[in-house]
């Protein structure tokens, strides 16, 4: 046994060389930018950092970001659960086409995502006369930001739930239904406990993207300080005004959120691994084994 293992092992110098190159690359491209955020944020000491975060405009950006992502995550959560239920519990034609459509926003560039909503609701958009008649503002206002955020984070929860629910099969739900449970009760008592970690996984990824969305939000926001500035947009304005410490102070909050997301994500993956399930930790298309 021991011999077999050693047969397949690379020589020590190759192993050390490859590990060194990999670590150096990761240090250069991942750890240094991370370090730079905090170094720049605390460049002028803790007080400037705290002052930058106490700024009312920073606060309103934080508040708007939280409101926008709450709405986007909640709606995409309802959608994700419905889509996963319809796709994994039933057989119908065009299933893989539907999955491709659900995944579509994932492959569209953020600026394009913003552009499509400007074409619908902007000053010269399809719905412009209607919006004008009722004095509703969507573009350069909060509703527009919510819409584009919903668009860019659209597939996130569905794409985690679909493979998970597919792998779990229908047997437990069918048993519950046969025993007389209603559909909603079956979902609540049988399905939900099985998918709860998958749900959390999808929600944190969706939330991270929603809070950090920049390109699409930038197209529809109009950058009105205190009104339509989300945190990433506020960072851009501060940075372009050479208020580096303030920009990085707000950025440090989002960086902290990103790190927290990674930690929770790793924790959930570890939990699944203990149950013998390897969560799909990649960004490829939702992959259903449709043959079964």
């Amino acid at each position, binding site marked *: 046994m021991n011999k077999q293992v050693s047969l*397949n092992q*690379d020589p020590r110098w190759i*192993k050390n060389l*490859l*590990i060194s*190159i990999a670590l150096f*690359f990761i240090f250069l*491209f*991942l*750890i*240094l*930018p*991370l*370090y*730079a955020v905090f*170094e720049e944020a605390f460049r002028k000491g803790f007080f400037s950092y705290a002052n930058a975060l106490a700024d009312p405009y920073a606060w309103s950006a934080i508040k708007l970001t939280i409101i926008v992502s709450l709405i986007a995550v909640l709606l995409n959560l309802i959608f994700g*659960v*419905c*889509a996963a239920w*319809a*796709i994994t519990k*039933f057989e119908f034609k065009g299933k893989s086409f*539907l999955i*491709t*459509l659900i995944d*579509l926003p994932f*492959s*569209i*560039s953020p*600026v*394009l995502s913003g*552009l*499509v909503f400007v*074409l*619908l609701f902007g*000053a010269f958009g399809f719905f412009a006369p209607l919006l004008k008649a009722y004095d509703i503002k969507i573009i350069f206002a909060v509703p527009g930001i919510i*819409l584009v955020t*919903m*668009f860019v984070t*659209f597939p996130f929860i569905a794409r985690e739930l679909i493979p998970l629910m597919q792998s779990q099969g*229908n047997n437990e*739900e069918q048993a519950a*239904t*046969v025993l007389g449970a209603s559909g909603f009760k079956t979902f609540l008592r049988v399905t939900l406990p099985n998918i709860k970690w998958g749900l959390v996984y999808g929600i944190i*990824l969706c939330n*991270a993207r929603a809070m*950090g969305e920049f390109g699409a939000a*930038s197209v529809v926001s109009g950058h009105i300080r205190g009104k339509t500035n989300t945190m990433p947009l506020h*960072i*851009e304005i501060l940075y372009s005004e050479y208020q580096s410490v303030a920009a990085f102070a707000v*950025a440090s909050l*989002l*960086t902290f959120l*990103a790190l927290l*997301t*990674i*930690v929770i994500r790793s924790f959930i993956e570890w939990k699944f691994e203990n149950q013998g399930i390897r969560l799909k930790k*990649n*960004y*490829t298309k939702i992959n259903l084994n449709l043959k079964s």
Partner: protein
Amino acid sequence: MFNNKQLKILPGFNLTMGFTLLYLSLIVLIPIGALVLKTFSFTWEQFISAVTAPRAVASYKLTIGASLLAAAINVVFGLLIAWVLVRYDFFGKKIIDALVDLPFALPTAVAGIAITSLLTSNGIIGKFLKPLGIELAFNPKGIVIALIFISLPFIVRTVQPILQDLDKEIEESALCLGANRLQIFFKVIFPAILPSLLTGFAMALARCVGEYGSVIFIAGNIPLVSEITSLIIISKLDQYDYVGATSIGTVMLIFSFFMLLTINLLQRYQFKKINS
């Protein structure tokens, strides 16, 4: 195999499917349809002159060139990182593994300003490069660096699971038959992971071409030199040039669909290869 009758016992198909289709149409299909419809309302001359304007053409070349280069660099280093994470044990491996997802979790604007602050002439890296006459900020080189950061997880995470599931016995028999490490890598391992590498490359490329937030801070945004296509769309929108923005947007949309198709075909090829 369950028959269809048994599958239909579960309730809620009409409700969940109805909501899925309604929400999908409202949030995704109608908006994308609006872009296509808008493009058809322009004359052919309008469309062609917008998408072939010198600034637009320069931006396609820059965007695709920088994206190809960044994705290619990541194929090499992404494979290396995936290899190291799967094959070797070392201190802090779990943390490094988790950290690979950072570019996916970190907002692009934050990545953009962080990378810029590193590379400008008084930044941590820029400081050392300045005496050597190397300038990485505010030119196309900076764009490539931002894109390398952004697309790294796509390649690592596509290759990693394939490398993990690779059958060690084949390698062992190759070794017993007298192959050396290099031969084993190129004749046994590489062909097995090639489809996943190509998929990762295509996904990284697709992501890079559409990237906006991390690039604009470092690019310098000089017309004809360091202006990416996404930025052209934004500046045309700012000038209320809807014809220009929509036309160039349509070109990008077509490219996205083309990449989506390529990735699907590559994944099918990969799936076939695993099952054969």
